[in-house]
């Protein structure tokens, strides 16, 4: 094998290995970012559920879930880790859109009530999370909590 052929072979090998290395690195960075976003969303929906379950101010508000207060609470928690993502704060009792209807780069935040259970949800596809086969690389996090009831 002459020198030129060896140099060409080394270049091809280098390109393959570097390409694979960068793909792995990108995957790891992307997964880390997704984990941070997911953790923030879990914390956010839990905080939102606690706010919603706590009742509203004013007369007869003790047994009325504060759905309107839950949505901005979630948004405050998730916004710092979702740069570039459009965060849709849906007005209660509007439910989040189906996952397929939410474009890439957007997340919905919604709070709903069914009987005595409050549901706060973050759903969508934030920026920075390319799909990986076999993994649900989207956000669909929910917190359900029983509303606080105040006996007379």
């Amino acid at each position, binding site marked *: *094998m002459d020198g030129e052929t060896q140099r060409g*072979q*080394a270049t091809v*090998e280098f390109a*393959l*290995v570097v390409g*694979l*290395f960068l793909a*792995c690195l990108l*995957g*790891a960075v992307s*997964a*880390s970012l997704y*984990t941070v976003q*997911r*953790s923030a969303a*879990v*914390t956010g929906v*839990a905080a939102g*559920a*606690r706010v919603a*379950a706590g009742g509203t101010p004013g007369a007869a508000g003790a047994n009325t879930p504060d759905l309107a207060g839950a949505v901005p609470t979630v948004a405050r928690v998730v916004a710092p880790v979702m740069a570039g993502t459009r965060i849709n704060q849906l007005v209660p009792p509007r439910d989040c859109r189906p996952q397929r209807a939410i474009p890439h780069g957007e997340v919905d935040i919604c709070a709903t009530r069914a009987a005595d*259970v409050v*549901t706060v949800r973050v759903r969508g596809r934030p920026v920075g999370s390319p799909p*990986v*086969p*076999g*993994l*649900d690389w989207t956000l*669909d*996090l*929910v*917190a*359900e*909590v*029983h*509303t*606080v*009831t105040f*006996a007379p």
Partner: protein
Amino acid sequence: MTRTHRRPDSGQALLETAITIPLMLLFLVGFLAVLIRVEAQVELDTATSLAAAAAVTAPAGSPLSATYAGATWSGTLRQYSYLRPGTLDGCGPYQAGAAITCRGSATLDYRQTPMGLLVPFPFRIESSATAHSSRYRSR
């Protein structure tokens, strides 16, 4: 007939690549597995914490504590394909002025994900959370 003399290092690059690529992929999958393990713990902790908070909202002495906690816990955990809710214990009944400590367990199963290649068996994770009722609550 001429005989080609191969250099000793002609197959070395192939061998190096054959070792390096699976190793890199293994590291990546392992990294993802650790991330999911941590994330699953966060999700279980959150659900158990909310369950404990829901349990202390029931009237004192009522079996509704466990009902509220169970509904909250399973409702929060139900949507994860890799995390199967297990049991939730200790959530009541709430007694006036007392705290409630809930203990939840779940099964983490990687087999529906690419990490199943590395961890091909389910395993159990646990969490506990304590909630106190408002000290201004009368009953």
